[in-house]
């Protein structure tokens, strides 16, 4: 009986060989097709844009508007601004959306990429607190107070003149443009310290997620683009060192956490990419910025 069991498999071989040939042929064909498709697609494929969740809504609206002209543009936000820059550096995308300026380090990391940033507008990062805290007496925060809050040394709102309520910090994950603007405001050129060991500290990613969690958490604070809290009654952008993130203060760069918004390309934009960026710079495209609470190039005096 056992011998039969062992012989049975050997009987399988011929059919298997045929099927094997067939499947290898299919696989080979697949590989060849892949290669062809690859070379054929390189020129005519859609424009890939990825990066900052701050820039993404404007980028998506512009892409939607250009659909009518036959332009295919995809927008993703994996990894935030730094994710976009690193994907552009490794030639995976054609346009990086960034809510932070390029650093020398970025250029050093990707020496083969000729980063060309185009500013499409500007935005202010607010230190966002809940209405309950603002109404409770927190009408202004100094740089030192912001530092204390995000480093976990200030743990109750009454330490900064607010209600007796625990502080809950939502920090942005590394690589997010928003987070770098906060770091620059608080630490200047210095390096930010390790994340605090405080218990009331969580990490968030995109802007919508941040807003969602701010709204659902009592006593919370987070850095967030002020454009994202327009029309949200529960959230307040607190003035910093006495300067509120109003339109005038941002336009004059008096507000300390003002930041430019960029579309970054490898070399001067060409073809569909140029069409895309030109549209954003055109009067029509610029109208998209205020829709999301951002400032146009004109407002910034560019």
């Amino acid at each position: 009986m056992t011998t039969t069991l062992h012989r049975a498999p050997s009987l399988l071989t011929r059919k298997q060989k045929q099927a094997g040939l067939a499947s290898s042929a299919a696989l080979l064909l697949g590989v060849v097709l892949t290669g062809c498709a690859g070379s054929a697609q390189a020129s005519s494929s859609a424009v890939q844009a990825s990066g900052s969740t701050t820039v993404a809504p404007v980028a998506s609206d512009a892409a939607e508007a250009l659909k009518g002209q036959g332009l295919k543009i995809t927008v993703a936000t994996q990894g935030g601004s730094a994710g976009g820059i690193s994907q552009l550096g490794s030639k995976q995308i054609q346009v990086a959306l960034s809510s932070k300026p390029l650093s020398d380090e970025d250029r050093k990391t990707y020496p083969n990429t000729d980063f060309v940033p185009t500013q499409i507008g500007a935005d202010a990062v607010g230190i966002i607190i809940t209405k309950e805290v603002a109404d409770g007496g927190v009408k202004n925060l100094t740089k030192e107070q912001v530092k204390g809050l995000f480093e976990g040394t200030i743990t109750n709102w009454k330490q900064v003149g607010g209600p007796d309520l625990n502080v809950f910090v939502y920090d942005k994950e590394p690589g997010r443009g928003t987070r770098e603007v906060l770091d620059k405001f608080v630490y200047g050129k210095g390096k930010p310290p390790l994340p605090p060991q405080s218990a009331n500290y969580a990490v968030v990613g995109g802007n919508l997620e941040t807003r969602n969690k701010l709204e659902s958490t009592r006593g919370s604070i987070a850095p967030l683009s002020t454009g994202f809290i327009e029309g949200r009654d529960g959230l307040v952008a607190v003035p910093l060192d006495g300067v509120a993130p109003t339109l005038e203060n941002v336009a004059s760069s008096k507000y300390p956490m003002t930041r430019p918004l960029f579309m970054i390309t490898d070399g001067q934009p060409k073809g569909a990419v140029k069409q895309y960026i030109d549209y954003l710079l055109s009067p029509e495209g610029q109208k998209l910025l205020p829709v999301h609470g951002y400032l146009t190039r004109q407002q910034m005096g560019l």
Partner: protein
Amino acid sequence: MWGWVYTGMFSVVLVLAVLIGYLGTGIASGDVDWLNLVSDPSWSPVNGAFGALAMIYGSAVVCVLALLLAVPVGWSAAIALSEYLPPRFARPLRLSVELLAAVPSIVYGLIGIMVIRPFVSMLGGVPGGDSLLAAGIVLAVMIMPTIVAVSVDALSAVPARYREAAYSLGLTRREVVRSVLLPQARAGMRAGVLLGLARGLGEAIAVFMVIGRADGRLPGAPGVFFSSLVRPGQTLTTKLAGPEPMLAGTSGPYFAALCALGIILLLLVAAATVWGTRKSSNRPAKRGLRGHRAAARMRIPRDRLTTALRMAALALPGALLLGMLGILLTRGGSALNPAFWFSPSTGAAGGGVRDQILGTLLLLATTALIALPLGYAAGVLIGTRATGKTARVLETLTVAIGGTPTILLGLAGYVLFSSAMGWGRSWLAGAIVLVPVVVPVIALTTAGRIRSMPPEITESALALGLTRAQYIRSVVIPYTWPATLTGLLLGLARAAGETAPLIFTATVFFGAPALPTGIVNAPVQALPTHIFTLSQDSGAPEAITQAWGSALVLVLITAVLLSLAVALRNRFEGARRWTT
């Protein structure tokens, strides 16, 4: 002669080789201070600090919490299902449990955000609710069906004559279970727990959505341990699913440290998988009839109490299933409207999910096309080497690949296809990354079926003088294809809900065409990533409605694949009766 069969198996091994190669070269590209990695809790790439203790601790706490919640309930429910319920109730219930085990983890993540996070926030009186505890609960709900399903199998494998003998001795049901069934089924039930543990350790997205992702957090003192459970944390998988693999580039100490995390994760999951699936049937149950001390008193009341407890435990998964279905149906009602299925999405959260459905189906179909020949070939090889030690090694390898954390497959695919080969985001890269999820399931079901071929069939075929080709065509293929297809469908049902690998290799949130026109830079949209982005990023009611609707569609697609698999399985049970 065996060329293509070996190619099949080789492809399975290749997956592991690529994965280990990717992680290995990563580690080699920058010095990894392993001692520091496993002993230091501070992780700060900006400052060059790479200590992963907090992530290891987070993984451990979350998994222990999940097991503490899921194992007692799962085991009791399994006992109730197999020993207390009459077959006409047990059968449909068992099917429901198997369905629960196949619900995509992204759906559990969504339920985690909408239901469990607020629950923890209320329970602990803490803001937010993102916490280790929430992650533990989500994982417990996720792995419980696996534990129940495997334990039920182990219990029903105990021969009926054991039960009959025990009952005829006058033992109560509780005593029969305790002294006869459990010693026999213990190995199998333990395997269920380990498989659940492996799934929990490797799960990325469901945990990512509810854990809060705060780095470097260890409870400073034993006293604050319990309060730290309701606070945010980070696990090995959430670190890898976050933005950091994209920021780390492809060499240097940062990338090396992330790859080292991947190695630790892979080793933990592989250990749990291999330990859970090792052959334990040929070892005698170590402790046979363990003494039942003081059993004489209160036997009947104790029996009744246990019955009540076990039935209650069974009611829990049942309630979970009903609850989940209820939430999905009420919140995801938009999915019941045909327009939702057949219209494209508009803006961020409007319209339907046509493109996402098409993208998901495209990914599944491509995965199936690649995985079917490879899985079948690997299955033939394992099945026909049933007696050899090699077969056991191959089988273990296959199981290990099946249990590989998919986030690692995604990252390897990201580095290999998207970066090195310059594909960018590509649907084909996504499909290829899903292949290792499906191949092991096909291979194992096929191998099992080939092994169960009764020798008489072969003997009569030979006696009738069939040629090899005739023998294959009329005997072997009819005998194995239902099992192969069942395996394929089960594997696809699992692949349908994968999120983490697709985020890195294949999908975008906005602007991808319904069907890609090429391969390079040709992303698609898919249901799992759609749900992920919507539920994670936005508190807007229309986005949440859209997320629930998409979740219901995804569950329905998975359910269709599973029902087909079950129908096929029933059919091939019939085939077996016909052949013997």
